[in-house]
């Protein structure tokens, strides 16, 4: 799995590419958390558009980042257009607490509109 990260204002934008499972979540978690805390950020956008596989380990990873963002009164959102990823996100109930958008701009605008 490839992870690319970008910091825009107080947003950490994380783009996942490939397969997110138990094996790949370990490394992703460390990388995301160190960037988030070292740069003292509050908001996070998880871009899952280039994921072609995700299981419940990915759900655990997102739930953990959700908690971290809430602790800092920040916001977290998901960008995704993949139906199989959406299926497991929906099944887990995550989409009841995290907004999903189809692109990064919408995710940032969505937060501003609130």
């Amino acid at each position, binding site marked *: 799995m490839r992870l690319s990260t970008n910091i825009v204002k107080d947003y950490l934008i994380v783009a996942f590419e490939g397969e997110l*499972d*138990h*094996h790949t979540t370990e490394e992703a978690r460390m990388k995301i958390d160190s960037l988030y805390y070292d740069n003292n950020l509050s908001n996070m956008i998880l871009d899952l558009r280039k994921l072609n*596989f995700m*299981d*419940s380990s990915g759900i*655990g990873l997102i739930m953990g980042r959700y908690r971290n963002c809430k602790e800092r009164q920040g916001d977290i959102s998901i960008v995704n257009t993949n139906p*199989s990823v959406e299926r*497991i996100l929906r*099944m887990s109930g995550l989409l009841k607490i995290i907004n999903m958008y189809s692109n990064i701009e919408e995710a940032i605008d969505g937060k501003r509109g609130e």
Partner: protein
Amino acid sequence: MRLEILSKSTNESFARVVVAAFASQLDPTIEELSDIKTAVSEAVTNAIIHGYEYNEGIVIIESTIEGNRIEIVVEDKGKGIDDIKKAMEPFYTSKPDLERSGMGFTVMETFMDELIVESQLGNGTRVKMAKVFHSLVDKE
């Protein structure tokens, strides 16, 4: 089909790709194939994290096809599950410190048509799952 793998997390993707390749002879839809890969991934991950608790062991994956139905068995010889009913509850995890979602069995139940979990403390766990491919039924 029978596959034995070491209980290493790098083997999770290998296991689901092998089962998906085996299942592809049934000409599944993309969604059906994705369901199978996800369910296998959950079962193998459970064996590694909970069955063997990251110690070295062998995970056995067996799969058979009969008509339009695939059966997949994922077995470990690890520590076993004390309370299967509790383990299968959505969001329950015995390892909250590892940021596990507790959704593994729920995913297997949702994405497959049948799920049977057998376990004995100290002797391991056997997860039997089955799915009927409707893509094939619809074509006939």
